[in-house]
């Protein structure tokens, strides 16, 4: 297992370098350069000011030198300063936003898991029945409904009409003076809608996958053997078949990371939640290039970590994977 982890970590290095190259290239697709935007705001900026600014950001150097310098500072966790008026360090901005986005995504993933498991498994065991059909329609509708639309409807229904849940932000006024129990309740009330709505789109992938995987396993020889030796149908399905059907779930969860992280841009900007997604959206709107570049790298690194965790988890439960990695 240790060896597997080491190999898997080494394999990440070229991907990480690739991520930096793609991010850097994307940000340099611009016809002009970032100083245009900063200086266009200020019509009094002279030609010399522009040149000074280009020098400050290293934009007067050849592109590969710029990349190398950026990579060097990236290695020191230095992503430069934001173009926003606060001029704060990009890393600082990202790090303070990260826990919110991570928490949102972990909760969403938990809901996806809790709902999809029974949905997919029962649909497979009773394939073709009423439950199978209605759950299929349900997950397809959830998948097709745009999350920002569901968010609007939710805000109208639960926020405006019923007044049950707050419609924006993460905390109420006077949060600092609450007891920790009140703080917990307040946070839960604010995050309930965004978390549930962002999980709906992910139900289809996992439950459909589980259903087809379970259907395939039910036909396998080892289940016939289990039945032949006289085990009850319940033990055959819910013990022997289930265990085998659950293993790939780890991979599917890992694969859903980029979708969730990307979706947090939409959820966080609608509900005004101060996470990485909202930071990224505001940066895109105001062309705050250092933050956009940092967010892009961060989003990809999160995905990479998600995949790593999934692979390690998979290897931990399935020895075949561990061995296959060295063939």
């Amino acid at each position, binding site marked *: 297992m240790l060896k597997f982890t080491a190999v898997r970590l080494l394999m990440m290095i070229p991907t990480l370098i690739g991520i930096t190259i793609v991010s850097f290239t994307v940000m340099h697709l611009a016809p002009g350069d970032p100083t245009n935007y900063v200086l266009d705001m200020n019509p009094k900026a002279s030609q010399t000011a522009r040149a000074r600014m280009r020098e400050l950001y290293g934009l007067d150097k050849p592109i590969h030198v710029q990349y190398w310098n950026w990579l060097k500072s990236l290695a020191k966790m230095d992503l430069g300063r934001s173009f926003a008026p606060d001029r704060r360090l990009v890393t600082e901005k990202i790090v303070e936003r990260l826990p919110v986005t991570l928490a949102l995504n972990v909760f969403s993933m938990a809901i996806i898991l809790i709902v999809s498991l029974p949905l997919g498994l029962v649909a497979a065991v009773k394939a073709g029945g009423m439950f199978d059909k209605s759950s299929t329609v349900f997950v397809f509708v959830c998948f097709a409904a745009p999350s920002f639309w569901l968010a609007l409807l939710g805000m109208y229904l639960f926020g405006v009409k019923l007044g049950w849940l707050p419609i924006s932000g993460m905390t109420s006024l006077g949060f600092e003076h609450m007891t920790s129990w009140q703080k917990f309740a307040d946070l839960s009330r604010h995050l309930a809608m965004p978390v549930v709505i962002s999980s709906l789109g992910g139900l289809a992938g996992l439950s459909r996958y589980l259903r087809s995987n379970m259907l395939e396993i039910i036909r396998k020889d080892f289940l016939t053997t289990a039945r032949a030796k006289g085990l009850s149908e319940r033990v055959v399905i819910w013990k022997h078949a289930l265990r085998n059907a659950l293993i790939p779930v780890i991979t599917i969860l890992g694969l859903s990371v980029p*979708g969730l992280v990307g979706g947090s841009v939409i959820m966080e*900007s609608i509900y005004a939640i101060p996470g990485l997604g909202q930071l990224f959206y505001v940066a895109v709107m105001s062309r705050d290039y250092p933050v956009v570049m940092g967010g892009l790298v961060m989003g990809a690194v999160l995905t990479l970590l998600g995949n790593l965790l999934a692979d390690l988890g998979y290897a931990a439960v399935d020895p075949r994977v561990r061995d296959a990695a060295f063939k």
Partner: protein
Amino acid sequence: MMKNTLRLLWRNRLAFAGGIVVLSLFAVSWLAPAIAPFDPDKVQVRERLKPPGTAGHVLGTDSLGRDVLSRLIWGSRVSLKVGIVAVGIATLIGLFLGALAGYHGGVTDGVIMRFVDLMLCFPSMFLILAVIAVLEPSIWNVMIVIGLTGWMGVARLVRADLMSLKGRDFALAARAMGAGDTRIILVHLLPNAMGPVLVTATLGVAGAILTESALSFLGLGVQPPTPTWGAMLTEGKDYLQQAWWLSLYPGLAILVTVLSYNLLGEGLREALDPHNREAVPK
């Protein structure tokens, strides 16, 4: 085979319904000038925020007094155009890179597939927004960006198919008769790999329509005053308390469209699956 596929599609009622809706949407956007009851951009301040059913406005009017139904009908053009052009771009790139990787193997394959893995690391929403931040938001840029970030699935599919197809007898026969690589790939191999690509493309249109509407909702997609479903919802957000219909109908339009493409795509997948083909009574 074509007939069988159609018959299987018919047997799957949900997929068939999806196909009908998709065809109707094509008709609606084609006929938009004829069937839209009002000019979608006509501002009538005195008619603003009228609820559905007033003065001929079946689905009500927005904050500028524009007819919601007419804007929905014209908005279907944007969704359709973005869906098809973006997926067209993605499919062409995927076919090209997938065919190169699968046919040549070796280093070419290694480099292309590592690039695929790399692209899959980026949450596509982040990548798309970053590119839009650098370029200007416009319908063309939206189509190109969605296309450039959505080709990886097709590439993987085509690569896997070509790897197995290139060793089959008919491919070897073509080579023995002196056909070049390009001819073998284009004439003999790719046509045999098109089934799954068609499925992926159909599902891809659904994804592209969702992405476009999200971008337009965020104000980074197709720019006003062009009516798009996503942008209509942005406006609905500001009038959530006074005018629920502004938030309801455009979302419903997106839901029905995306659902139909997905059902059609899933139906095609089942119909093209050789496991199911024998089951059809002759």
